[in-house]
């Protein structure tokens, strides 16, 4: 086939053609190469047709005019079309490559742009960070400056107030000075006037005293002349007064001193006793021992020379320094004890507190629940609660009862079903029996009448119906479940036979779809005894169902009668 060979040639050469002009497309070469190898594997001598069809499909899918028609003969291939197609493909390929190039260019550009943008964004971020920091710094500075301003303002206010105060003082002083000046001036003027008056006044009145007789001195003594002796005496008296005053003061101070010293001694003794009592519990016992020994020595020293030596400066200094030392020791000791105690106290207190809180909470809850219970018991509850709680003691038993009911219910259902099947079976059995009896009767009749040759067709009919019935019954005999088949068979049976009067009663007979599926018809029930078996439970539904079944029974009996009538 030349076409095929041509095609093959083309195919085989096409990759070569493709490679030479397209060599400068570096990327597309490799797949091309692969393509050629693939091409060789794609189309072989055996699957030319398939290849052709495949290719034509592809080409048509690409939107080009079909190269090869399906219905045309396999060897026919329009070269022109193929060439056109090839040309189109080449064009397409070129265009694709171009677009690819463009896209690659675009991609390069965009990537470079992206890089650039990233760079700028990082730079801007840095700038932003920098400016933010600067801003924070500036804010901080501003705040500090504002604080400074505020403080300066308060300073200024203070200064102003001070200035105002000083101004007030100056004003008052000035007014005082002015007042004094005026007073002095007035006095001066008066003096001047007086002087003038005196100058003018010729008659000068002299001072004089006019006493009737001199009176004696108050103390009765004679007045003395002013002599040096008297002066000395006066001086002496003056100094005596002063000295006596100092004497009294000194005596008082001495008494005070003695008292204070006694107090200090007492304090020292107390401190020493306190510290020595703490001796075994403290660290650095040896140190304390030495000190206390020194103190005791001092004490001895002091007490022995109490009366005289205490008043000398040396002893006094010793006493004060020793007291100071003791006091410092005592203070540090007390501080240490305090811190320890506070720490321990704090810890133990915390634990205790937690424990106590927990206990408290528990007790509170307990008390609350007890109160509630007490309230419930003591107070009369209202009707609702009473009614609710009336059977509260029986609750558990009720629950159990309910559970048992449930189980019993299930069992009942099962029993129902079984019963139903049994009743069905019984009905069938009865039917069979009836049929059998009838058969027997007929057979007997036939037998009797066999003597006469008339009953063939009926028997055959009967047998047929019976057989159908029996066929349907047989598989059911063993199985208790699947009453639907039975129903269906019954239905068939009934539809064949009787008027479906029972459809009327279907709705009212089976309102509860639990036992029997919907749209089902009644089952003829023969005896009430079967039904009675099932009426063990005191469920509300059951009696109704019982009634309904009774009704159905009647209907069934009616239908049976009808059947009977019809059959006969």
């Amino acid at each position, binding site marked *: 086939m030349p076409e095929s060979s041509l095609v093959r040639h083309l195919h085989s050469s096409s990759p070569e053609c493709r490679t030479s002009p397209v060599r400068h497309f570096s990327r597309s070469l490799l797949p091309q190469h692969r393509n050629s190898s693939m091409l060789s594997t794609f189309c072989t001598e055996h699957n030319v047709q398939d290849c052709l069809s495949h290719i034509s499909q592809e080409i048509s899918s690409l939107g080009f005019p079909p190269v090869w028609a399906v219905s045309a003969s396999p060897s026919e291939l329009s070269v022109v079309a193929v060439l056109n197609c090839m040309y189109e493909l080449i064009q397409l390929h070129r265009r694709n490559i171009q677009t690819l190039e463009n896209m690659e260019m675009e991609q390069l550009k965009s990537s470079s742009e992206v890089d650039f943008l990233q760079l700028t964004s990082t730079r801007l971020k840095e700038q932003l960070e920098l400016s933010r920091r600067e801003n924070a710094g500036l804010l901080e500075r501003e705040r500090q400056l504002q604080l400074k301003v505020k403080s300066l303002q308060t300073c200024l206010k203070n200064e102003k107030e001070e200035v105002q105060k*000083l101004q007030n003082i100056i004003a008052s002083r000035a007014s005082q000075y002015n007042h*004094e000046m005026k007073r002095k001036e007035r006095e001066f003027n008066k003096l001047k006037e*007086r002087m003038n008056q005196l100058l003018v006044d010729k008659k000068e*009145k002299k001072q004089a005293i006019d006493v*009737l007789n*001199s009176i004696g001195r108050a103390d009765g003594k004679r007045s003395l002349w002013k002599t040096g002796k*008297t002066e000395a005496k006066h*001086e002496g008296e003056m100094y005596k007064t*002063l000295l006596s005053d100092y004497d009294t003061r000194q005596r008082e101070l001495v008494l005070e001193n003695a008292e204070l010293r006694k107090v200090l001694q007492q304090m020292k003794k107390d401190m020493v006793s306190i510290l020595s009592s703490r001796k075994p519990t403290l660290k650095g016992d040896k140190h304390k021992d030495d000190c206390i020994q020194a103190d005791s020595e001092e004490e001895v020293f002091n007490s022995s020379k109490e009366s005289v030596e205490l008043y000398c400066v040396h002893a006094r200094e010793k006493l004060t320094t020793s007291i100071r030392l003791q006091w410092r020791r005592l203070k540090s000791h007390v501080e240490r004890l305090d811190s320890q105690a506070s720490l321990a106290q704090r810890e133990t207190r915390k634990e205790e507190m937690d424990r106590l809180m927990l206990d408290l909470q528990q007790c509170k809850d307990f008390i609350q629940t007890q109160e509630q219970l007490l309230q419930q018991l003591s107070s009369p509850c209202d009707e609702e609660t009473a009614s609710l709680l009336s059977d509260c003691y029986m609750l558990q038993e009720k629950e159990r009862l309910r559970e048992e009911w449930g189980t019993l219910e299930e069992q009942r259902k099962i029993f129902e079903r079984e019963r139903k099947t049994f009743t069905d079976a019984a009905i069938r059995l009865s039917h069979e029996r009836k049929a059998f009896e009838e058969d027997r009767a007929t057979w007997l009749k036939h037998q009797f009448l066999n003597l006469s040759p008339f009953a063939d067709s009926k028997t055959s009919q009967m047998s047929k119906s019976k057989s159908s019935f029996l066929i349907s019954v047989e598989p059911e005999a063993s199985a208790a479940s699947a009453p639907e088949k039975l129903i269906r068979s019954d239905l068939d049976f009934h539809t064949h036979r009787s008027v479906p009067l029972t459809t009327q009663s279907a709705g009212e007979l089976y309102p509860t779809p639990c036992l029997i599926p919907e749209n089902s018809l009644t089952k003829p029930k023969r005896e009430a005894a079967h039904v009675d078996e099932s009426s063990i439970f005191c469920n509300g539904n059951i009696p109704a169902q019982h009634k309904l079944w009774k009704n159905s029974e009647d209907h069934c009996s009616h239908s049976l009668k009808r059947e009977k009538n019809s059959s006969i």
Partner: protein
Amino acid sequence: MNFSELFKQSNQLCKVSPDGKYLATCVQYRLVIRDVSTLQILQLYTCLDQITHMEWASDSLFILCAMYKRGLVQVWSLEQPDWHCKIDEGSIGLVSSRWSPDGRHILNTTEFHLRITVWSLCTKAVSYIKYPKACQKGTDFSRDGCYMALAERRDCKDYVSVFVCDDWHLLRHFETETQDLAGLEWSPNGCVLAVWDSCLEYKVLLYSLDGRLLSTYSAYEWSLGVKSVTWSPSSQFLAIGSYDEKVRILNHITWKKIAQFDHPATINNAKAVVYKEVERRTAVGSDDLSLHNITIGTTLFNTQSKYEICPLPVQIPVVKPDPDRANPKIGVSTLAFSSDSRYLATKNGGFQVQSLSWHGSGDSLILLGKEQLCLCFMDTDQEDK
């Protein structure tokens, strides 16, 4: 309280003798001596002119009546009604006249405070003291009457002269470190002299009897300073009332401030009890030390007024004085210690209380207002001692 009939008097010259037996009143130019218990007129003397000043001598035997306009002093004797004495200062004039503590000398201060003339009634001798200072309290006698301190001013400097009252011998004469000495006061034991400066400078100097400077005290600068000073009767404390409405108390051993009392316009101290007269307000500067319990308020005009205890805080009505005027009516102007030195009564501000004085027993205080009199009695049993 019972009141006698009204007696006439002039110039508020009405004094009881130091021994408490006689009452002397001046009516124009007459001097009336009554018996205190019976109020019968015992003596009647007539002076030459309207009496401007009258004073009992310390032994209650003599009375001086001074007539400043005429420059005359007349002395009368109780024992001898015929006895008379007249001192004429002449043209030099008379500004003040007083007895010396021994009751035998009269000190006359001449006009313009040129000098003090000491007239002796025993010897008829005259002594002159030059350059006395004209100030709030320029002379003070010690309580035992031995010494007299006199403030002098020479060459624009202040001096203090201490005289022995016996023979007016100048014992000590020393310069003080004051700008403008305003007053001086002996301590009750006579050993320390307190000297204070004028209100333009807060300065209190303490000199011993022999003229040594013991201590200086200055609470603050520039504002108006000391207004009044008083010693406690035991000489242990010196109370200084100043224009800043505070009282500062110095102790006699170190002469340092040991206490300071404020006079706030709003009393909020829980310990203070404030009494308010229902009829008319005569508020007293409260003292933080005392606890007033019962107050009997009476007026001279028999109008009933009650005192009720005001609940704290109490706002005392304050009249702000004109700051431009000299000697403003602010500050603690009157101080008075009780006799046992336990309480201090102070008057702050411009209230119309002329004087405060304690009873000798130290448990009651009498306040004299311009038109009213108030007697405060303290229940001392409640004090915890």
